């Protein structure tokens, strides 16, 4: 039985959004949320609404940009895409994340 869905760990949502945009190209908020859920495969309880403050935060930092376009159902939707600075940030975050994971693994592994 799969473990019950966990809350989004603090600070990881930004990283997920950046990765999604890098991988998928321009996407609207709904698309980003769906993609994250798909990848998480039910391991994550994402309140889809929380995506929007995160998007604004990233935009303010200059890591993503937005542009109005039309969605699959012909509604106006904002499409977000990653910037160069965003890609650089993603790389840095990835590395630091990997380090953290490695460190945690060593720590937890030693204990057991």
């Amino acid at each position, binding site marked *: 039985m799969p473990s019950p869905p966990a809350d989004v760990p603090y600070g990881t949502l930004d990283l997920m959004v950046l990765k999604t945009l890098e991988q998928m190209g321009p996407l609207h908020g709904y698309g980003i949320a769906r993609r994250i859920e798909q990848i998480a495969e039910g391991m994550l309880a994402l309140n*889809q*609404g929380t995506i929007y403050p995160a998007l*604004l935060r990233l935009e303010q930092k200059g890591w993503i940009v937005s542009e109005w376009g039309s969605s699959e159902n012909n*509604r106006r939707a904002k499409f977000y895409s990653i910037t160069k600075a965003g890609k650089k940030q993603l790389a840095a975050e990835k590395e630091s994340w990997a380090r953290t994971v490695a460190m945690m693994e060593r720590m937890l592994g030693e204990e057991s």
Partner: protein
Amino acid sequence: MRVFLSRLIGAFRRRDADLDEEIQTHLELLTEENIKQGMARDQARAAARRAFGGVAQTKEAHGDQHGFRLVEDFLHDTRFGLRFLRKSPGFAFTAVATLTLGIGVNVLIFSFAYPILTTRLPGTESERLVRIFENRDSNVFYADYEAFRDQTRVLEDLAASQIEGLSLRIGDVPEHLVGMVVSGNYFHVLGISAQLGRTLTPNDDRPDAPGVVVLTDRSWRTRFGADPGIVGRPVVVNGRPYTVVGVAPPRFLGTAVPVIPEMWVAWHAPGFAPSAEDVVRRRERSAQVIGRLKPGQTLQDAQQDLAHIAADLATTYPENHGRTVNLYEGYLVAPALRAQTLGFLTVLLTLTALVLIVACVNLAGLQLARGAARVQEIGIRLALGAGRGRLVRQLLTESLLLSVLSSIAAVVSVVAVGRALASWSAVMPGGMTLTVAPEIGWNIVASAMALAVATTVLVGLLPALRSSRIGIVGASYWTTSTGSRLRGQAFIVAAQLCLTTVLIVLAAVLARSLAKAQALDPGFSSDGVLSASIDVSSRSFSPEPGARFYADLRESVEQVPGVISVGLAELVPLTLSGRSRLVLKEGQNPPARTDRESVVVFTNNVSPGFLDTLGIPLRGGRDFEDRDRVGQPDVAIINETMARRYWADTNPLARRFRIWDGLEGFGPWIEVVGIVHDGKYVTLGEEPRPFFYRPLGQSFAPDVTLLIKTAREPLRLLPTLRTQLRTFDPDLAVFSAAALTDQTKLSVLPVRLAASVAMVLGLIVLVLAAIGIYGVTAYQMRRRTREVGLRIALGAEPSRIVALLTRRSLRWTAGGIGCGLVLAAFAAAILRTLLYGVSAVDPVAFGGVAFLLGTTAYAAAYIPARRVSRLDPMVALRCE
């Protein structure tokens, strides 16, 4: 401002709309997805919403992220606050009126103080202008001015100026007015150019140059009807021909503010140039000096520079011994007057600050009461998840709203009052015009806003913090008041009463002092006496011809129909002017420096007929006569106090005394020829002081006042008097003509002013305190309605209920008033110099005020109490 606001609001709207649309799209896409997976439409929509989470929270979080949250909340709170105030107009009105009064008086005082304290001298690059004085704040010897001007290395140039009374004849009517004599470079140093014609130049400042005048804008308009062809027009100044060469710009009012001259003439212009003898003896008129620093130089540099020159002068000339030079920033108002004004304004601002504090305390009391009434509302907000900080912010916003509304009202009323006052100007003795010009500008608005913020904190913070501390659970139970809260409110009422008592007692003591002062016997009668000043200094009379001129003048005036008697005096009694001398009787040695006070005697120079005109009775000897001239034996008339002090029980007639200059010099022997009844000379409140009169024929003064006793209304004599004087001497201008009764009122001006200020402020705080007491008591009554209902239902008499309800507030009232009386006794002691024949702890004033305030406080408590005691018990019991 409005544009900015609308843009701001617009930005919010657009952003909100964008976000709405984005969320909408998201939800629809999600719904469609759900439908595809086989859900019914309704179900699909609900599922989509669930997956999305709270739409409102998302928006809020989004807003927080934007950082505009504070502003947005603020706008929201403001809207809410306005709605709230509209719902309780009584409270809103009371609060705004209270704060308007409190803020208004402070802003008004500030509007007067600000320009006096901050306005700099007019002119170009005025930050380079400095004021120069000798010793602390004495005018500069003209000879020293020349030395400074010629030897300085730090100052670009220095200008000298002095106020001088002069007579101006246009056509055949001579007028006495205030002019200013200035060095030729005066306008150039300041950097002022004429609006018409030209200003003065160094070429005009030579004894052989033709006489020219530059007019002020006001003088040009009032005296010459703003004649555009004024330049080149001949006028007669001090009996000599002059030509108008220019008109100064409207905003230039000279450099002796608050004294505003009507025209400028050169220092050495015809009739103004000092005599050769005075130049040699360095005794020319002294000057107010303004310097202009060279670019890059500082006040300190200039101070050092001039101090060197002054030190040289002090060693060269004996009269400069110990004389120092001092430089000050170039403010429009001279430093000595600035300091005085500052002192006076400090006292005034302290009083008005007290008023504002009373207003704030008052409002804080009301807010506390209301805070209690809003407990339920606040409880609900807390239950719905409002943060504590957010709640405090909302309550503070409401206070701020009140304060801002009040400041706006205050500024509007100050502008109105200021306009009214600005058109007022007082003609002072000597023909000077004083103008009071409050500056209505951004500074006023700024000060009002600063006060608004201060009052918000004072008024709102405590109640807001208190209210927000209520727990959710507490709120639902919180129906009966806790003891501490009631005590807090009662304390506020008591504090208010205490402050009110202080102000009103002061007002009452001063008012009684004023009444007593007006009933004091000045020792002379001013009824039916016209006083009119003349100034013949421009004719440089020596004493003998001067005395003859005065004798002829008296004779001429006596011929005017309706005149009973005429006298001349250098100083008019009871106009706050006095002059004293050190006097030694025959055989008396000069006292030690510390004992000088014992030989100080006040004096005045008068003509024959002065005593008769003022009805001062002779106790022995004779009045002055026309034969008391230079060359004849020097004579004096002394008062009874002087007779007692110098000659005790012996007869002083024919005894002699002389005037001592405090060093080595003694005047000639003066013989006592008459003794008069004691009187008041400088102020009404003064103790009896020794005094002597000298005849103008022997002690000549060129500026004197005609005192004319008439059987008619004094001012009605004026037209015939002027006609008579014109035939006597066409260049003799009469100025400051007034009934002597009105002039002597000047001596009680300080106490009158203090009494009216204290009275106005006292009444304001009395009203405030009454509102406060009423509000707080009424509120407490409402809270006890149920208890009262129960008592009534159980058979309590209405009178017992009233006694019960008012007992507590009476106790606090008594405490507040008692405390106020004690403080007032201290405060009144400080004002002792203004108290005439009234003790600082005047029982009438203290008792009266205690009674008045006690009654007011009781009434404020009694009225609501009675209302409650008349309630139908059924209604009362059901009220909560």
